[in-house]
């Protein structure tokens, strides 16, 4: 099944097209299918949530394109760190679904890496149990190509956290991510929560952008403030409010809501 951006009403800007490696000329879907990686079934969110993730993906791509227009084009894919103030705020879910939306809806080559080695989230979400992943690559028990998974229907490449490791330095993770950036347009790293580790802040300094995931009804305001302080040096590009009760918010000070902006 061939997936394109047509049908979603999304117009790619010239800047965006120049910033990201073009996929229109290269049949990367075929490329992915030819990749010798197991294909896994991706979770299917509710229709409304799926649409929201697609909108997040479009917006993210627009921001990346705008930023890239101001700098020299980079040969590597964009590195996006997904983190949150607290545990359980929905980093993994957001990273996976945004990555899926970028890949399926916008036709980008996307890799989603579970960077939370102490509390892996990607593999359990995919129902994979104790799949091998980043930790195995870091301790040398497996190669990167051995731990790659391929999302079905043109989904993103997936790199689970893998088994437990003693050395969790982000330098090793950075090397894996850099390798993935060579072959992907966007690499989304599901990093630990900022309350647990400084990995997100460290990775964020060398990333192209950081997405902060906030969970409605769970994230405390002081945690959010602390997270913003921790990311003061990182290229923070936006927030995703997760687990919202779904009702439209009132106007505040004449400022439109996100949905109105998008629509």
């Amino acid at each position, binding site marked *: 099944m061939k997936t394109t951006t047509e049908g979603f009403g999304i117009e790619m800007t010239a800047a965006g097209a120049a910033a990201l490696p073009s996929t229109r000329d290269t049949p990367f879907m075929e490329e992915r299918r030819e990749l010798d990686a197991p294909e896994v079934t991706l979770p299917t969110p509710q229709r409304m*949530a799926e649409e929201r993730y697609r909108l997040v993906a479009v917006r993210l791509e627009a921001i990346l394109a705008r930023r890239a227009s101001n700098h020299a084009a980079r040969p590597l894919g964009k590195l996006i760190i997904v983190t949150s103030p607290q545990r359980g705020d929905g980093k993994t879910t957001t990273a996976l679904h945004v990555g899926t939306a970028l890949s399926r809806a916008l036709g980008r080559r996307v890799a989603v890496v579970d960077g939370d080695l102490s509390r892996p989230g990607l593999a359990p979400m995919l129902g994979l149990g104790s799949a091998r992943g980043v930790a195995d690559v870091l301790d040398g028990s497996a190669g990167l190509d051995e731990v790659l998974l391929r999302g079905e229907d043109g989904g993103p490449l997936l790199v689970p956290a893998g088994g437990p490791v003693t050395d969790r330095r982000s330098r090793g993770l950075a090397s894996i991510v850099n390798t993935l950036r060579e072959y992907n347009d966007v690499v989304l790293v599901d990093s630990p929560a900022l309350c647990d580790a400084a990995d997100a802040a460290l990775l964020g300094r060398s990333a192209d952008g950081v997405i902060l995931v906030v969970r409605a009804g769970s994230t405390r305001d002081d945690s959010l403030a602390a997270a913003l302080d921790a990311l003061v040096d990182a290229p923070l590009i936006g927030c995703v409010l997760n687990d919202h009760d779904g009702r439209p918010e009132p106007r505040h000070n004449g400022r439109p809501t996100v949905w109105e902006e998008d629509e």
Partner: protein
Amino acid sequence: MKHEAGWARLWAVVRRRRWPVVGTTIVAAAAGLYFVKTLEPQYQARSVVRLDDPRPARDYVPPLTSEPDADRLKSARMGFLSLPLVAQSAEKVHLLPDGDSKERALALSRTSAHLDARQEGTDTFVVTYDDSDPARAKAFLGYLVDAYTTLRSAEFASRAAATTAFLAKEIEELRPRVAQAEAAVAKVRLEHYGSLPDQVEANLRVLDDNELNIHALMTSVDAAQGRRRDILADVQSPLRHQEEAVARDLSVARTRYAADAPEVKNLETELARVRQDRVSEETSTGKRVQSSTELRSVGDQIDRLKGQIGAAQQRSTELRGRIEAAAKNGESLAALVLDRDVLRDRLKSLVTKHEDAALAAGLESGVSGHARITVMEPAWVTPEPVKPSRPLFALGVLALAVGLGLGVGFLLDGLDRRVLAIEDVRSQVGDLPILGVVPRLDRLGRAANGNYTRAATSAAGSGT
């Protein structure tokens, strides 16, 4: 951390805290309704009283201070609610416990709180009392009305008696002052008798008569003097005419002739002889007349008349002095008379008032309160309880319960430090874009990759 406003805030709180809000509302409503159900029913005793004359005996005892009728009626209303009366009536129906004064004060306060008196029309009061025991309510209200009428009658009698005593004291103090003023006036009148203003007219009249008398006396004097001249004229000699004729001839001759002319010399000799003869004759005649009785009588009359004229002129001078002094005397007398009249009028007024007050005191002491106050409607009790109004109370309780539930919701929401809405995020992140708002996922959409798991595990085990 909430940043909604107005009705949106209310709705958001209700939505977010629906279970605490609903739970609190239900519990509060249940408790309130149970409380309403257990409220003791209150019966109301009612009596209508008309004050036939809300004022004291005004015709007999003029009020010392001016008090509008409306204020009098207000004070009459307060009389029904006065604590001594309430306590007196409550004691009779055993509403007040024996012993502890604090408990008695509390019971009295409760009783007073259930009592009300409101004015209907210009002179009528509706007195009501609420109690859980209808018989007690009726008895209490009956005692209260009786006590009020008795007290009010005694009050009027007391006021009338006090007024009478006060006026009597005033009269006793004023009488000596009036007597003193009258004595002062009498003394002045006595000292200046004859030269008082009210005697000026008489003095003027006497003065006129005196002047007429003087005039008449002077006329009589003139007549007497004429008579004496006539008598004395008889004494003159006929040679006086001859002397005058010779004197005229001599004068003519001197104009015609020289002084030493014989005509002149002859006439001068003739005149000297005639004059000598006349003098000689008049001397002898004068001696004879002077000794006559008539001439002496006329002289005496003239002397007597002149004496009378002198006395009359002295009298006139005295009268003029009195008339001139009357103005000054009148001035000082008028001041004294004025003081005396003021005191006398005041005394007269006080005496009149005292007589009226004494009459009023007698009337008030003999008139019972029921003659002044008409109980138009004796105390009776409503057949059904008037309080509490259970539907109204229930509505109030429900409103309070809803308010309490909302209050709990707002409290919990205010204490909640979690991010709940987009505005909460915006307030924290400032200008940082919100890339998206993802609705709650009821279904996690966990993928089923069991086959892969087994395959991956086996692959790991085989080292591929």
